[in-house]
């Protein structure tokens, strides 16, 4: 295994009808976890589909381990890719095992290999006891685990996962991420998410998507350091009345009784803020101290909220 990476150069996608879903995206993803983080409609799925070889770019180049996905080596490049669309098209009435064999064969494995790899993949994702059950009886978490199994059947270098953690309850999400972390070791993982905590916890590198372009990128710690280093104090209070200034700092109000302040240091700022509210005669219900995260970075960079 020589050094391998996913290189995306000036990628554009204009859908028929004139919608430009991706506008000039470039990045390089090496081994480890790269997340595409952005709100719905920011172009993550479109980008991943193009990298996976399922959607033709209007312009730009995608090279996977030296092979051009949309060029002559396209077939070889696709052998290196394991792609999980947000909804894997399982055949509901077939068993998990049968679905894996089918997908394995689509990915180019012979029947015997597909069967062996399916058994192995089921074990890897902890579904060996449920392999003979129909997929329609699976829970959301089991389905997602089966999706991941389907992606690793042919032992690809690159895993492309579209929203692997969304739509799951917190426990199932934990489980799925545990799996992705362990299976992703040594591989190139590129995934999309609209959940900032997910990107923060599970990325070596985050690419922030906004309106079809990347507006910032880097390791999560670095992005936070650079764009939103200061902790926030969030005050939940009676609506009405302008939030007071504290030490010359304005509060950012959402207008519905929630105001937050960006401060240098939470412990010294907290009493001052409460005092200011009392003095202004606004009743405070609750105060939260929040360490800044990618959510704040997104807001700072784009001026928009990540999770609307």
């Amino acid at each position: 295994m020589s050094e391998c990476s996913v290189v995306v150069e000036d990628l554009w996608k204009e859908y028929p009808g004139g919608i430009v879903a991706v506008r000039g995206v470039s990045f390089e993803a090496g081994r480890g976890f790269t997340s595409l983080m952005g709100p719905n409609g920011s172009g993550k799925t479109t980008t991943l589909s193009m990298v996976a070889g399922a959607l033709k770019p209007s312009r730009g180049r995608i090279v996977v381990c030296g092979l051009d996905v949309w060029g002559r080596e396209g077939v070889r490049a696709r052998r290196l890719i394991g792609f999980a669309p947000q909804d894997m098209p399982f055949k509901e009435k077939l068993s998990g095992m049968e679905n894996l064999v089918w997908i394995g064969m689509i990915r180019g494995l012979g029947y015997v290999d597909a069967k062996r790899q399916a058994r192995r993949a089921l074990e890897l994702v902890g579904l060996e006891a449920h392999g003979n059950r129909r997929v329609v009886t699976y829970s959301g978490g089991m389905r997602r685990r089966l999706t991941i199994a389907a992606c690793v059947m042919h032992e690809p270098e690159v895993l492309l996962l579209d929203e692997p953690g969304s739509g799951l309850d917190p426990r199932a999400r934990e489980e799925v991420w545990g799996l992705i972390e362990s299976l992703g070791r040594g591989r190139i993982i590129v995934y999309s998410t609209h959940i900032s905590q997910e990107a923060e916890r599970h990325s070596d590198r985050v690419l922030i998507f906004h309106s079809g372009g990347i507006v910032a990128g880097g390791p999560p710690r670095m992005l936070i350091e650079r764009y939103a280093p200061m902790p926030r104090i969030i005050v939940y209070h009676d609506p009405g009345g302008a939030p007071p200034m504290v030490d010359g700092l304005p509060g950012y109000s959402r207008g519905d009784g929630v105001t937050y302040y960006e401060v240098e240091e939470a412990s010294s700022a907290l009493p001052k803020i409460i005092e200011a509210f009392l003095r202004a005669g606004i009743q405070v219900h609750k105060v939260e101290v929040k360490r800044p995260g990618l959510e704040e970075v997104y807001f700072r960079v784009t001026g928009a909220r990540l999770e609307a």
Partner: protein
Amino acid sequence: MPVSQVLAEVYAFLKSMLRYREIAFWNIGFPIIFLLVLIAVFGGEPGVLEIDVAVVDYDRGPFSSVIIQALNSTGALKLQLSDLGLEELRKAIANGSLSAAVFIGEGFSENITQGSQGRVLLLYYSNPQSGDYIASIIESVIGEASRGIAARIAGDARAEILLEPISVEGVPVSPEILATKGGVRTFYVIGMIGVQILFSGLYTGAGIIVERKRDGTLKLLLSSPMRGYTIFAADTVTSMVALLISATAIVVVGRLAGADYSLIEWRDALAMSGLFAVGLLGSLGLGLVIAPLARSPEAVNMLVNSIAFPLMFLGGIIIPAFILPEWAQDIPKALPLYWCLEGVRRIVLYNYGIGEALGVALPGIIASLALYIAGAIVYRRLLEKSVEIV
């Protein structure tokens, strides 16, 4: 061509057949039920509804027209003037489309005028229930006419007198298998296989991209190491497998319901399978050619049904082409599948040799293959377009 991806579709089809009742129904249940209904309703002893008699008059003399008038005057016979040759007449009678034929050769009137006998050939369907009876009616009508002619000539001093100026030579034509109960049922067995070919080919062809787009497998396939024609090949092979299963069920149930396969030798079976397979290719091709008209699985449904239902009845598939109304007579001829089925029928029902049968089917074979190639081209265009939006 990556074989495993082609086989992936076959694998999923076979597994789905076990799990999805609707798939098993359309491939096995439906054709069996339909076949049994056809056999129950139409599969009895082929009745002679009308006494269709063809008259071939190469004489065009005064005495031949006397005979024709006489036959016409009975009112019991439905006469049609024809210029078929003897062999063609024999075939038309053997397959039940004619009850009898009266053949009057050249020089018939001349012979009578010169005092020798005029000879008439009476080809008739030698079926003990109706054929012999029809022959005797015709014979007696001609006998009557003969005596009339004798009387007329007797009044003419120049001519010699012959008591029976006309002799009738009866030529019994033994019924071919289609004119038997088992044969009619076999006709429906073949027709039912044809129906499966028509529907499954059109459905598969017209839905090749659209169905996969809807259920998301297109994305999966495109992101896999497949080549341009992989899906096309996969669907071709899968529909062949589906047809094999359907046809086996139809043939077995047909046998149990009294279809007659006695004329089939194993070499014939091979040729027939080939004709069915080519017919399927044509049907797939036709489906692909119309595929651009259907942008959703629902539209595929509507489009395919609106084409396949009328063709099932008017395309010479489950209704014999020769009993279609006049205005519909040419519809089957425009359908390649009809010719392929016709080739099969010639072997099974009319005991043609393989070479002869393939000769009959040739236009259908060529047109089917051409459609399949056209379908391949349309498929590539559809695939290229589908990569633009997923």
